[in-house]
């Protein structure tokens, strides 16, 4: 009799404790959301990156399918990091052999035709010039993905501005949607202007 009472008391205590903890946790979350002076008021905190599908705000947690889908965080764990986007350095992942994306539907290996050719675009203003590497792009894409619809393959024929890129044209067809985002300025603007030009 005594033992049973003790056990039920312990269960009650544990359950009560858990409920109190959960409420405190919820209260702190709610406070963080309602606090007008909270950190990162307009930004997604780092801890919420690569979230599991049922809690990512786009997948419906009421659908059974959602709970079968893989969590990005779990997949990205072994891959090299980057500062933005998926927080994965996809080119480094391919170069290191961490991932081996197929170049055709079937599992017969088809080697991509890689073109190692850098295009330098001298830009207006104070930013370093842009170096466009065909190499990394042709590892993922065919020539016909970009030429001639997005970029005319002729020197001087393409007007490109950051405004159009931000709005999803030119480089912005991929960069800022799936390839690394436009906040990574120096990955493109990578060649310092010559000193004479500045004077």
């Amino acid at each position, binding site marked *: 009799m005594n033992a049973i009472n003790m056990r039920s008391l312990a269960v009650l205590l544990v*359950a009560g404790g*858990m*409920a109190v903890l*959960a409420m405190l946790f*919820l209260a702190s*979350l*709610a406070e963080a*959301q309602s606090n007008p002076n909270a950190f990162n*008021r*307009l930004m*997604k905190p780092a801890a*919420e*990156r*690569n*979230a599991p*599908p049922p*809690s*990512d*705000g*786009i*997948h*419906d*947690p009421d*659908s*059974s*399918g*959602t709970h*079968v*889908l893989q969590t*990005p965080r779990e*997949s*990205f764990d072994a891959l090299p990091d980057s500062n*933005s*986007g*998926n927080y*994965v350095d*996809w080119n480094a992942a391919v170069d290191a052999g961490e*991932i081996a*994306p*197929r*170049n*055709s*539907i079937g599992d017969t290996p088809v080697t*991509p035709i890689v073109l190692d050719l850098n295009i330098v675009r001298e830009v207006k203003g104070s930013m370093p010039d842009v170096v466009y590497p065909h190499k990394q792009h042709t*590892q*993922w*894409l*065919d020539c*016909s*993905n970009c030429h001639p619809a997005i970029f005319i393959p002729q020197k001087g024929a393409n007007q490109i501005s950051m405004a159009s890129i*931000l*709005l*999803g*044209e030119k480089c*912005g067809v*991929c960069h*800022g*949607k*799936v390839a690394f*985002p436009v906040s990574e300025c120096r990955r493109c603007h990578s060649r310092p202007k010559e000193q004479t030009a500045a004077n």
Partner: protein
Amino acid sequence: MTVALVAVAFSFLYYEAAKAEYGDVVINEFSDDAGMRPVVFPHWFHRIRFRCKVCHGDLGFKFEAGGNEINMLKIIDGEYCGACHNGNVAWSIENCDLCHSGIPNTPTQVHHSTTQKLVAPLRSGTADSAASGEGTNGEQQP
């Protein structure tokens, strides 16, 4: 009871802000009207397994969310998603819920695209946001 309350409270908190993965595409051209959840296409999962050109070159997917007019008839005939999701290369189309897994009424969008990340959303009617099928109405308000 407590557990249920906590779960409900959490689900509300999670609805507050979408935290989906960079490049996730919601495709809701026909789904809502057909009584299905919208499709969520995870770019990240697919680019681990295929280079961009397989879908965007060989299979003819345009670089535009909602711009391909994909429907189930095309898929069962082996076009678009159906080129792989046929039970041979990837799981077959009986698994409706694995693609049609989006929250109902979520508009077509590329999640975390540049225009979505602007803290002050583009004014509605901005030429490009309308043209690219990536309207501002899908944005998460801060």
